């Protein structure tokens, strides 16, 4: 059976849904962060599949830029989480409810 674009479509959709479920289910800020990374990777996989399908190199460069931005985002986000842990000694996101007061 040849691999078609639909297979990659479904695989990346499944990975994206798992990422969303994880974001909604967990309370640990670090795990929510990792689920966001998972969603980014699902989108990357789909972009590469379509770049392969249409023979276009631009999509693969977009994946490259997405990786760059994700790396920068992880650095800043982890710094924020470390800071939050120093203040409240927890990474439970429910504590952040107090931000609105």
């Amino acid at each position, binding site marked *: 059976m040849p691999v078609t674009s639909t297979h990659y479509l479904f695989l990346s959709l499944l990975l994206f849904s798992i990422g969303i479920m994880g974001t909604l289910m967990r309370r640990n800020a670090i795990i929510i962060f990792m689920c966001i990374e998972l969603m980014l*990777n699902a989108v990357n996989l789909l972009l590469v599949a379509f770049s392969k399908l249409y023979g276009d190199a631009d999509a693969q460069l977009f994946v490259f830029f997405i990786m760059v931005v994700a790396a920068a985002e992880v650095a800043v986000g982890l710094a924020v989480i470390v800071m939050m842990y120093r203040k409240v000694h927890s990474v*439970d996101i429910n504590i952040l409810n107090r931000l609105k007061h």
Partner: protein
Amino acid sequence: MAVGCALGVILSRNPVNSVMFLIMTFFAISGHYILMNAQFLAIVNIIVYAGAIMVLFLFVIMLMNLNADVEPQKGMMIQLAGVISGGILFLVILMGLTTARAEAIDPKSTHIGLISNLGKVLFNKYVLPFEISSVLFLSAMIGAVVIGRKEPLAAGEKAEIIQN
């Protein structure tokens, strides 16, 4: 395999195990890149994600000593709601896509994923975004250091540093 490891990320209680599962997922995705002849992206994915970012995650988890199972769980209802809403999203898009045209991906028809071709496109068409992303990296690095430092400086000290 990617799907199983991704499920492991969200289901394992221990954050360190989650990180390990996520690394496995990234390796599986890199395998898909290699299958699609996108070798540059496969290598970059392994180096950047599995190497750098995941080590950063592990470092933070170890630093906070979170590997003990201390995480309070959400209520059963909220977890169920999360799974149901994610599943409904999956089903809706799945139904929308079942009628999509299936085109076979030939594994070795093109060579666009090789470094030489990507480099030509990157440095001809996308030079400006490339430079901007380097500036973004620099600012993110400085931002991370500023946020993560031990105690915030007083206003007077900050002004002094700026003047120097």
